[in-house]
């Protein structure tokens, strides 16, 4: 009985050790860049494994599912989502991290914006028919924290200015995040 158990344990340990061989292959497929390089050529890396190092500027306070890494310049920023990894901690803010993961692209084109606008309009129509009747537009607008339709309008203008078929928004789906020791 014990011999059989030992054989099973050895077999499981052998299989588990085989699983570790993938890391070498995975590492060679990862492209290491600065955040500035990544932002400048993000479309080329969409769907691929990338590795960047930066300072954590902000960790989402609601669950820590996303954080923002900053490069040498404050304008060089990339969003990182934790994906299947454990959530990011607020203590990460101000620390340097090396993040590896897949660069995910969100394409915002005219169809996307049309869909977004109709969803916003549908929500506004259903949410407050009583308010639309009894309050004047100025009072209603005063209580709005933001105007989603104005945001859609701004995105349309940006799309038109770019001369491209779509605007690309990128984030890294984290596979690993390792703190860089402070100098």
């Amino acid at each position, binding site marked *: 009985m014990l011999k059989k158990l030992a054989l099973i344990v050895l077999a499981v340990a052998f299989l588990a050790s085989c699983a570790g061989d993938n890391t070498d292959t995975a590492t060679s497929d990862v492209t290491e860049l600065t955040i500035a390089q990544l932002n400048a050529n993000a479309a080329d890396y969409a769907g691929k494994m990338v590795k960047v190092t930066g*300072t954590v*500027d902000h960790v989402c*306070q*609601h*669950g*820590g*599912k996303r954080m923002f890494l*900053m490069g040498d310049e*404050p304008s060089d920023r990339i969003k990182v989502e934790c994906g*299947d990894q*454990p*959530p990011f901690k*607020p*203590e990460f*803010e*101000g*620390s340097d991290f090396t993040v590896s993961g897949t660069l995910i692209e969100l394409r915002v084109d005219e169809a996307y914006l049309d869909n977004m606008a109709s969803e916003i309009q549908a929500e506004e129509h*259903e949410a407050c028919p009583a308010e639309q009747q009894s309050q004047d537009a100025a009072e209603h607008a005063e209580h709005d924290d933001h105007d989603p339709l104005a945001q859609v309008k701004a995105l349309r203008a940006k799309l038109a200015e770019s001369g491209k078929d779509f605007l690309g928004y990128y984030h890294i789906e984290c596979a690993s995040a390792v703190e860089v020791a*402070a100098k």
Partner: protein
Amino acid sequence: MSQRGFKWRKWNNILHRDIGYLVFGMTIIYALSGIALNHMKDWNPNFQVNRRDVQWTQGAPGHDVNRAQVETFLAEIGEEGMYKKHYYPSPQFMKVFLKRGSVILDVQTGEGYVERLQKRPLFYEFNWLHYNPTRLWTWFSDVFCGLLIIVSITGLFVLKGRKGITGRGAWLTGLGVVIPAVFLMMYL
């Protein structure tokens, strides 16, 4: 002794009791965090934000402040040893990352504030679980919800008679279904 039919009520009550014990902890966690997260617009459910005003003491910081100068300033405002990093998010402001906090300063006036986030005891931990931190927890909470369904259904049949599901229970259960149904009809 003749054998009676399957004693379903006995097993119903056993299930209700034992699963009830099992899900007690998780129910408290999800209920408390649910209330906390429900009122996210009224308060920060995870952190207490403590803010105090500070003033750069050597004129205005400007745009060329080095680490040593920032550390001296931090010592003056009672944050010695808390320095992590500093940078300029915009031409108007300087931000200093502290251990578990930050300082924002106007580079021209030197005015600013220290902001510290203090985790709300229990709420921070409970809310963290409610946010589904890992896939494993997602599966675990699915099982918990399944157990809640069993506890709810078995609870309907614990008592017999006028205090059971055919008596008072029918009214109260009906009310518990009618209220969400009315909300759905009104707002969906």
